[in-house]
């Protein structure tokens, strides 16, 4: 992981908040996904790597961030996969996502939803940053 990209948990009374930073938007999405995995305490088990692909509208960056993480949560619950590898490309007004998942063994914590609360992508010296609140 590049030191220019990362995530850290922020104290929040009831829910979970994550600060994420990366040089650009696709890298930010990847860091947010890795941060979400870390927050929910995913444990993986041995098994075949599975690929999933999806396309999301990308005209609204905040909405893209919420939709991307919500999509991963949904597929995680449906297929029992933890996504560990990300190939994300912005093409015109769409995100093309090719992700690789491994079998999920267990989770410490269930994330109910990714929220828009105070969500704002900011351009900073580190590139792009966001704070995301998860309902748990």
């Amino acid at each position, binding site marked *: 992981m590049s030191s220019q990209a990362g995530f850290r948990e922020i104290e929040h009374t009831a829910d*979970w908040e994550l600060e994420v930073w990366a040089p650009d938007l696709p890298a930010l999405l990847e860091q947010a996904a890795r941060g979400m995995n870390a927050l929910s305490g995913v444990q993986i088990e041995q098994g075949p790597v599975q690929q999933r692909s999806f396309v999301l509208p990308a005209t609204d960056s905040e909405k893209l961030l919420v939709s991307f993480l919500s999509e991963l949560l949904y597929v995680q619950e449906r297929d029992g996969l933890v996504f560990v590898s990300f190939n994300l490309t912005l093409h015109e007004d769409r995100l093309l996502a090719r992700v690789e998942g491994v079998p999920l063994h*267990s989770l410490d914590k*269930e994330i109910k*939803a990714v*929220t828009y*609360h105070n969500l704002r992508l900011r351009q900073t010296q580190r590139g792009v940053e966001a704070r995301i609140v998860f309902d748990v």
Partner: protein
Amino acid sequence: MVALQDLKQISDYEWEIPRTYRQDMRVPVRIFATRRLLEKVMDDNSLEQAVNAATLPGLVGEVLVMPDMHQGYGFPIGGVAATRYPDGVISPGAIGYDINCGVRLLASQISYQDAVDHLSDLASALNHYCPSGVGGKGALRMSEAELDQVCREGSRWALKHSYASEADLRRTEESGRLEGADPDKVSKRAKERGRPQLGTLGAGNHFIEVDVVDHIFDPQAAQVMGLAEGNLVLQIHCGSRGFGHQICTDYVEEFQDAVRRYNIHLPDRELVCAPLSSKEGQSYLAAMRCAANYAFANRQVLAFYARKAFEEVFAGKLHNWQLSQVYDIAHNMGKIETHVIAGKEVKVCVHRKGATRAFGPGAPGLPPEYQVIGQPVLVPGSMGTASWVLVGTEASMQRTFGSTCHGAGRVMSRHKAKREVRGETLRKELESDGIHIRAGSMAGLAEEAPVAYKDVDAVVETVAGAQIARKVARLRPVVVVKG
């Protein structure tokens, strides 16, 4: 951030943030709290979130905040807001992702003395019969058509399938079924998530708990409810699981565009809303009602399995081991109700997020036995501490759109609770206090430690002091089952 000096003190239990605090506020914010409880939340964002909520179009009266408030996302937990029907708005974020998260209370005639030697077996039986845990799936396997029936019929579906009695339905908010649910307004994805999860508890702060009626404050009301000092009761706290979470997610996303279409400007995107009269608003209302009905049915199925657990442990040992329903009430819901505002009856959509409906004596929709005493209000405490049974009052009808508190309310982040509390140590401490614990995750147990919550007794003293609920009984936990 809102500071204490921005608040006007109305009484020992009430404060106001005037409409002049911020230019975009449409109504004032009324806070129910003692100074001590208020000081506990001054460094989180609950009051700022209440001020943001006060900008929603079509609000009537005041935005209300209950003493168990804490910061949430968009709208504060413990918040109540009523919008004029049909020209006001409905906001999914002001109801929450866990639509119709709520509490069910069942009473028994089993005395603690008779049960004490069987409580460990009871904890294991409840843990066995009532599936819990992260993403947990239940024993029921439903087709999409059956799920649609649950959406339309709620607890009545459970009655048809022998999971409920008529008495259970009579003692459930709205008889366990909201009118106007339309499964066609629910996404395929939500249905896919909802199908395997009916009859499951989930994780987080959801639980099944056996308590002893520790003290009775209102003997008449307690008798009507079937509560007797020293007897066991059962609480179930859960909601609409992934089904409701997905419905809220879908509509919060859809409403991001709706606010632009209706030229609504908000300080926080999580507060997105649509006019109740609009196609979008009506669709959400119909989908939200599906999740509400799913949650009523969910708690009903869990009650059925909890009764099986009681039967397994007590049948043949005790005569009267049956559980009778006291009440089932939501604390995350949007309801179309009629309230008297400035002397006139007004139809409104009451958003309650972490706030319990608390209808007073004579309110429409209550079963005959509760017409005199008022509607039971169920206030679970934090794990290992007391829970409360209250009733709604005339004052709650007049001043809070028939609403009151819903629990203890967090004061410590989950992260900090996990740093400060070891789940296994906490489990041993609770067990040494005579509380039998069954928990899916020790980390999850640590997050829900009593130290992470406010004192529920102080919360209840506040709503009683403000007369927006009346005390009936205090409960003491003896078995806790958590996902």
